[in-house]
């Protein structure tokens, strides 16, 4: 009989793990997925598209119900796991009976951060994290509301773009002096700001939210410098934290995230974690791609094959507010590195390739990301680029000299 394998969390990491397992360990496990959101796993990255009206809610589902059925996966969604009994190898579930496991995978993702400012608990203050949030924001936009989005990272920009597209009047507040400071350099961020503003979004940088005012409902946002911005709603999109509640309560080793080793195993044998909730070699990744890489490693491990995860070269490769954005590696350019830069503001394009020791070590691209994956591979492979240096900005070229 197959071993019971339970995955807690029904997000993108979970779906990828099931997909990988169905290829590498077919029939070995009886898989159950327990998810809190009352729907099939969907592509969270595309929530802003739903918000923007570019995709319908059901269109962003990762796999149809038949797909899960065909792989014999037991799906329990709309179910909240309240505890892990590591010794008994059982999960407790709210309003339901316990579920036993042989192997457990935590894919609990992350939680949105709410700023601890006065008024942050007023009605009309929301987050933008899941499908339910999206429904709320859509109804706000439909009313042509004035919405303040707090946070100029990826999430905030996505929310702002979606809301603006859906009809809301959007002001984006960002604490730092540039947008997406973790993914973009100064120039890229400045270009992104121009492009975001072209879409009708007001962007305020170095804007520190001091308080949210309102009687029964949000009425305005006050900044640290005293400015007030009238608002019908406030969206917190100023960061996420790994969702480690279950793990911590179960006594698993946690730091910022759930500590895992190179096969994604937590401090408890047979219990694994991956995705945004996991912390590998001190790093919590907030992106899809590392989660997928982790899923591949974990699937191989669970299939009894040799596998090890050694961390991801972080790259961002997304449409942000309708603008293609990519960054990877040392895109700022550490001391001793040099950069090749291309600018074309009218076409909304900025590209920077960072080179150190004759190798591509980082890249940031705005507007034109068609060669992004090639750059990412070059960064990862650490292939010498001297022979293609003059051409690499303009598209894929071979790195080896042509055969004579």
């Amino acid at each position, binding site marked *: 009989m197959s071993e019971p394998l339970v995955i807690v969390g029904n997000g993108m990491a979970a779906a990828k793990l099931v997909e990988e397992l169905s290829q590498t360990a077919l029939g070995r496990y009886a898989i159950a997925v327990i998810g809190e959101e009352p729907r099939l796993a969907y592509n969270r990255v595309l929530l802003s598209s739903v918000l923007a009206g570019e995709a319908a809610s059901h269109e962003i589902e990762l796999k149809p119900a038949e797909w899960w059925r065909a792989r014999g996966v037991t799906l329990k969604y709309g179910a909240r796991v309240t505890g892990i009994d590591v010794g008994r190898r059982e999960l407790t579930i709210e309003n339901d009976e316990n579920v036993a496991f042989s192997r457990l995978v935590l894919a609990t993702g992350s939680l949105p951060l709410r700023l601890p400012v006065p008024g942050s608990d007023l009605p009309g203050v929301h987050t933008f994290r899941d499908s339910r949030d999206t429904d709320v924001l859509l109804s706000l936009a439909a009313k042509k509301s004035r919405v303040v989005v707090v946070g100029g990272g990826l999430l905030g920009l996505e929310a702002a773009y979606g809301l603006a597209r859906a009809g809301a009047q959007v002001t984006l507040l960002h604490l730092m002096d540039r947008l997406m400071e973790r993914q973009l350099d100064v120039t890229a961020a400045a270009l992104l700001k121009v492009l975001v503003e072209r879409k009708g979004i007001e962007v305020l940088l170095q804007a520190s939210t001091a308080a949210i005012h309102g009687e029964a409902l949000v009425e305005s946002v006050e900044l640290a410098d005293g400015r007030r911005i009238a608002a019908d709603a406030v969206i917190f999109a100023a960061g996420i934290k790994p969702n480690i509640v279950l793990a911590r309560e179960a006594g698993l080793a946690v730091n910022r995230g759930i500590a895992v080793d190179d096969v994604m195993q937590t401090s408890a044998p047979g219990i694994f974690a991956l995705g945004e909730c996991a912390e590998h070699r001190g790093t919590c990744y907030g992106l899809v791609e590392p989660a997928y890489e982790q899923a591949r490693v974990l699937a191989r491990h669970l299939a009894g094959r040799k596998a090890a995860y050694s961390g991801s070269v972080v790259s961002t490769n997304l449409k942000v507010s309708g603008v293609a954005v990519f960054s990877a590696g040392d895109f700022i350019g550490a001391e001793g590195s*040099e*950069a*090749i*830069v*291309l*600018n*074309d*503001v*009218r*076409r909304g*394009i900025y590209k920077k390739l960072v*080179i150190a020791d004759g190798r591509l070590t980082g890249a940031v691209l705005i507007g*034109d990301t068609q060669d992004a994956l090639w750059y990412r591979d070059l960064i990862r492979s650490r292939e010498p680029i001297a022979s293609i*240096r*003059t*051409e690499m*900005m*303009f*598209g894929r070229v071979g790195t080896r000299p042509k055969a004579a």
Partner: protein
Amino acid sequence: MTTVDPKLRTVRTACPYCGVGCGVLATPDGSGGAAISGDPAHPANLGRLCSKGSALGETLGLESRLLYPMVRCKHGMERVAWSDALDHVANRLKHIVARDGEDAVAFYLSGQMLTEDYYVANKLMKGFLGSANVDTNSRLCMASSVAGHRRAFGADTVPGTYEDLDQADLLVFVGSNAAWCHPVLYQRMLANKQNRGAKFVVIDPRRTDTSSEADLFLGLKPGTDSALFSGLLVHLADSGALDRDYIADHTAGFDETLARARNLAGSAGATALATGLSEADVAAFFKLFSETPKVVTLYSQGVNQSAQGTDKVNAIINCHLAAARIGKPGMGPFSLTGQPNAMGGREVGGLANQLAAHMGFTPPDIDRVRRFWKASDIATHEGLKAVAMFEAIARGQIKALWVIGTNPAVSLPDADLVRAALKKLELFVVSENVRSNDTVDVGAHVLLPAQAWGEKSGTVTNSERRISRQRAFMAPAGEAKPDWWILSEVGKRLGHAAAFNYTSAADVFREHAALSAFENDGSRDFDIGGLATLSDEEYDTMAPVQWPVRAGKPPSPRFFADGAFYTNDRKARFVAPEVPALRGETTAARPLRLNTGRIRDQWHTMTRTGLSPRLGAHLPEPFVEVHPDDALRYGLMHDGFAKVTTEHGQCILKVVVSERQQRGMLFAPIHWNATNSSHGRVGALVASHTDPFSGQPEAKATPAAISPYEYVFRGFILSRTELTLPPNLWWARATVPGGFGYLFADNGDLMRWPGWFKARATDDVADYMDVGGGVYRAACFDRDRIATSVFVGPGHDAGDWNVVKTMFAADRLDDEQRRMLLSGRAPDGASGGPIVCACFGVGRDTICDAIASGARTPAAIGAQLKAGTNCGSCIPEMKRLIAQTPAQADVSVKVAS
């Protein structure tokens, strides 16, 4: 090539470039341009045009034109009314002549002037200002031929016609790159070679494109031509090829000349020693020449531009006289002139050592001309020839100079000295088409706008004595006037209203024709008295006609078959040349000799050809050609830069390493100047040693040194308007489709370019910067069109100028093109390469692809790409490419083996 409204009238005119004198059909397009094609009815070209002539339509723009008279005032040049400008010139001339005498004034004219303009200038100076200080840029071109003709024939007579080139069995080119410099005639001779089997012998220190069809190429040491032809004379004598009767009846001086020739080159072996040729080659040439009665010897600047140019001409003529191979179909010596109307200038007498109409400064001639002109103050002695004239200006002896239609600050030898001399003038008048050239920019005091080709109307004479009408087909630019009118107005203001009361070019022409016949009666070769009574209408419709046109006499196309030379005893003279020697010694510090010349698609100082994008595409940068061994010895890299230094100046030029160049010799083209290059003004390098008879300078053998010159960066700029470039830059400007191109090299900081560019850019900028790689590329846009683009890169890689040029020419770039622009690569990966065929704009890469895929002859390439099917002057280059490019079959064999 341009679509033309059939209702617009086509005008028959003549090309303004070389001395072939091709007929041109010009059809105005109604918007300031014209469609150009060859005139099938013109006997010089029978419908053909070369690359330069074909591109005439691209040179008619008004952007660079001088549109109204200007006079220098305190604050620079100011526009004035014609009457004020003319008053000023006349008053100043009058004042200077009154104070310093008539020899304090001078005219420097041009072989591009029309005969009528030339006539009035010559008459004004020699008949009414009293000086013969009238010289012309023809002095740099064919003065040695004139002097040689006069020594041998007693007159400046070209004995033969172009038909002789069709009928000859042997064509000997001496110092002539006719393939590039007289392409239409060269094609005509090639047709003779192909159809009749005529042989070509090419005698030149350089293996030019003319040599590519040669049956025998003689790469002699520079300056040894007269030894070769002396050896030939000896051979003719010793092999029984002399025409003893002709020598006895019609010539003088044969025995002394033959004796001298035996001393110089008494055998094929001695000739070989004197010329650096192999004895076998020399013997082969001698045999071919002596056994081929129908032989034409064509010569050009390699003979003329020499301190012994006149001797070289006579050494050639000696051989033709000795065998009586002159004045008969298919034979004779033939001087190829370099300018459209050098011959017309000679007919008028617009040279310092002639008076007028093939008359000199003998008392009877002076008297005759004085009476004909009713001259108030006729010149009584020769004036100063070009080089001496500018030396006299430098000494302060000549105080007033009027330059018409030429650019002496570029073209004269020792051109820096010329520039300095011009600054000393009290009165410096320039009649010009363009607002700016090196001569104008020295600091002209008066600028007079002259009508340009297409606007002016008159006659020109080509190398075979054929007078053709150059006709107007468009309205004059601005207030531009004919030169004859400008000169006449000054003549009137000097108090000679009756002598200069012309109302039309036809008026002037009739007087010119009448003078040629005045008291002539066969005593002078130049006689067009038959044209002296043409009505205005007959003048307008005059068909090309060869002189002489004697009134009431039948035409006689050739001279001297039966003697009747123009010496006192009607006998030709054999003239013994001096021992061949170059002036100016090479030394350890100046071990090389600098040869100068033309390139295929440019003409003179590029004031006209430089306006054509097509012509700018072939060789856009000033260069120096050097033999591989010399390149190795002096550390020069092909496509690198070199500093060429002579006693007179220095230039920095692109290096072309070529086997076609002789060891010890450099070659640099003459066309670049200070308005289109920073360091390419080759005239400044050339020594001013002149021939004692012709006054023509030795422009092809200046002692020189060469050394590599390194630049860290290279690049190019494309712009819709002319730009002021950053300082301390090497640059050359070329006209490109849609604007101007600058090719440059730089040792400055790469980081100076972004600031320089952005200060000149529109708001819409795209740029690419790789500081570590030494690359900066930027373009700014005006809507979807490139406004300005700059590419800077390391010395070996500045990006592909041809690709960016193509994008620059486009009215709009789509998104993908704009994306690829800064890569300097074509979106489809093919650029076509540097232009080979200027007529159809076909690039080297395109041609090589065609060759590789099986087009192994110029005809096959032409069928596929049209390249070489118009003027044919790129055919030699295509043949070289065919020889260099392996066929695809060959490639696969190599891979397999």
